[in-house]
């Protein structure tokens, strides 16, 4: 029975997932057994679990490229990159949570357990190499997201966020699964890596294939919050507890990109030389995604202009950023992928940073509205300055990390030739629009007059803000190590594809 021996051999490569699952159950159990300081204990265990996951993930380097568990999962530098990414972003959320008052004391154990569960789902998603595995992992991330979004269930906004999220999610997943069933009907396989040959062999009708791709794109588009599948994002981001919002805007979004890249580059593209691909059967999905990318950033940025709630504003900004990142996706070359991954790293630092400032100020300020940020710089200097840096980085102003990230994206587009020049122009115009609403926050904080009285931000939050501020500034000046790591992480489809 080769399946079983393959499974046993695969376990050694699934250590990050095993550790996460173990700690998830352990936190749940510990929360049931002990009666005192349960929140603190769960938080400590979660940090311990994430640290161990990081450790075992790093031990998997230098990762070859292989398929695990009867070709259900793939392990390669690309997957490991995302696993480290998810552990890092969840760790920030876990660390910032104890000093906040969002989560009721009785449910803190569950909260930290769910944070590990969503990390587990995202890790699986980054590795998924089979349609069935993609659906399972995507659902694991989604269902946990619904729970986390509705964690303050006594508050109407939070309950509404969870319900809207669940309904949109169900429709998007249903559409995606339908598309996948069509793909299975066309190719006769659920394995991503077997699809290109199957399509080439079967001589599938291009229209049927295109419809299938379109339907699958709905599910992924929903996960990365790309227009027109973004409608859930503002309400969910506003209603959910802000730490959860911060995670949703980074973790599941990146997981969506991970599965998007693997799905399209493995199943719907054929290698055409080193670091270059061609769309399979001449289906023009790059153009389709390019249009989605342009519309996403434009809609996100234009609607963000009018927002008065910071979480909502950052939600639309997150939508716009999904559009920026998609620009690298359409190029079908290594340079585009490289720009995407690099931008995701940079985006994680600056976006988590911006949300972190909102979270840190929500306590003393008792507000997440833009109007209450007036005159903030004179009341508490450090978070205001940090916020300004994060926002300027999100705009892409040198010498901050966001600039380098955007530079790579635009450079990749322009080097790809005249065909994608229009997309680069749309991207640049959008960056200009985004400057307006980011600068509006900075103006409120530094130039407008507000109420007086000093605000004290929790010291844990100050430390965390500094921890995110340093890379945001540093990566704008010296990014060679991260660039090398990103470049190494691009190996996702080499031997596996053959």
């Amino acid at each position, binding site marked *: *029975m080769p399946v*079983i021996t393959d499974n*046993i051999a695969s376990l050694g490569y699934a250590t990050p997932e095993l550790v996460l699952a173990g700690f998830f159950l352990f936190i749940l159990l510990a929360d*049931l057994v002990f009666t005192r300081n349960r929140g603190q204990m769960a938080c400590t265990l979660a940090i311990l679990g994430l640290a161990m996951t990081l450790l075992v993930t790093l031990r998997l380097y230098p990762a070859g490229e292989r398929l695990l568990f009867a070709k259900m999962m793939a392990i390669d530098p690309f997957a490991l990159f995302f696993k480290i990414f998810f552990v890092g972003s969840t760790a920030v959320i876990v660390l910032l949570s104890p000093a906040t008052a969002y989560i009721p004391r009785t449910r803190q154990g569950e909260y930290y357990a769910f944070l590990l569960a969503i990390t587990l789902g995202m890790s699986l998603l980054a590795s998924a190499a089979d349609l069935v595995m993609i659906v399972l992992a995507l659902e694991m991330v989604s269902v946990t997201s619904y729970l986390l979004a509705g964690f303050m269930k006594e508050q109407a906004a939070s309950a509404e966020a969870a319900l809207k999220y669940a309904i949109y999610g169900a429709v998007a997943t249903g559409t995606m699964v339908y598309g996948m069933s069509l793909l299975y*009907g066309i190719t006769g396989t659920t394995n991503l890596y077997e699809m290109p040959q199957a399509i080439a062999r*079967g001589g599938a009708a291009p229209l049927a294939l295109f419809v299938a791709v379109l339907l699958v794109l709905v599910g992924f588009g929903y996960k990365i919050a790309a227009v027109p599948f973004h409608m859930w994002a503002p309400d969910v981001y506003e209603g959910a507890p802000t730490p959860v919002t911060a995670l949703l805007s980074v973790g599941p979004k990146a997981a969506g990109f991970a599965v998007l890249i693997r799905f399209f580059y493995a199943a719907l593209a054929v290698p055409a030389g080193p670091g270059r691909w061609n769309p399979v059967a001449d289906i023009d999905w790059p153009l389709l995604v390019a249009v989605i990318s342009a519309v996403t950033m434009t809609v996100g940025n234009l609607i963000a202009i009018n927002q008065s709630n910071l979480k909502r504003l950052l939600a639309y900004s997150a939508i716009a950023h999904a559009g920026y990142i998609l620009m690298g996706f359409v190029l079908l070359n290594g340079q585009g992928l490289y720009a995407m991954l690099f931008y995701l790293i940079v985006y994680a630092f600056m976006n988590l940073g911006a949300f972190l400032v909102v979270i840190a100020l929500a306590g003393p300020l008792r507000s997440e509205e833009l109007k209450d940020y007036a005159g903030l710089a004179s009341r508490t200097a450090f978070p205001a300055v940090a916020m300004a840096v994060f926002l300027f980085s999100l705009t892409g102003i040198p010498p901050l990390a966001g600039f380098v990230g955007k530079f790579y994206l635009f450079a990749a587009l322009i080097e790809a030739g005249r065909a994608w020049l229009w997309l680069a122009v749309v991207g640049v115009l959008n960056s200009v629009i985004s400057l307006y609403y980011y600068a509006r926050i900075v103006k409120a904080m530094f130039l407008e007059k507000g109420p007086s009285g000093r605000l004290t931000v929790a010291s844990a939050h100050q430390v965390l803000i500094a921890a995110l501020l340093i890379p945001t500034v540093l990566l704008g000046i010296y990014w060679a190590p991260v660039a090398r790591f990103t470049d190494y992480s691009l190996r996702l489809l080499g031997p596996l594809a053959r």
Partner: protein
Amino acid sequence: MVTEFAGVLVFIIVGILFLAISLLLARLFRPHHPTPAKLSTYECGEQPVGQAWIRFNNRFYLIALVFIIFDVEIMFLYPWGAAFRELVAKNLGLYAFIDMVVFIGILLVGLAYVWRKGDLAWIKPQQRF
């Protein structure tokens, strides 16, 4: 590939025809003597009371969810049990055993969770956990 899906189409057509013909034949031959008792809604022999659109206690769903989890467990246990002897013969018995222990262990954590949280009681106790 076309032939495979043609089978589905034939299946649908035959299904519709079968239903239509049998209902039509029944209509032609059956006696027709309606009484008030016959025309009333069937509710397990009880007198129908009120509308079906009422508010349910949502604990029904909770209990149903817990039930389904263990239903699925049986579904996995059965083929596992059927294949166990064969696995032992291939020296994989220990692996298969540990496999199932882990699986049931995960479900047991879930059971312990709903129990401790008071979700198995019909009237939920004041939340302490």
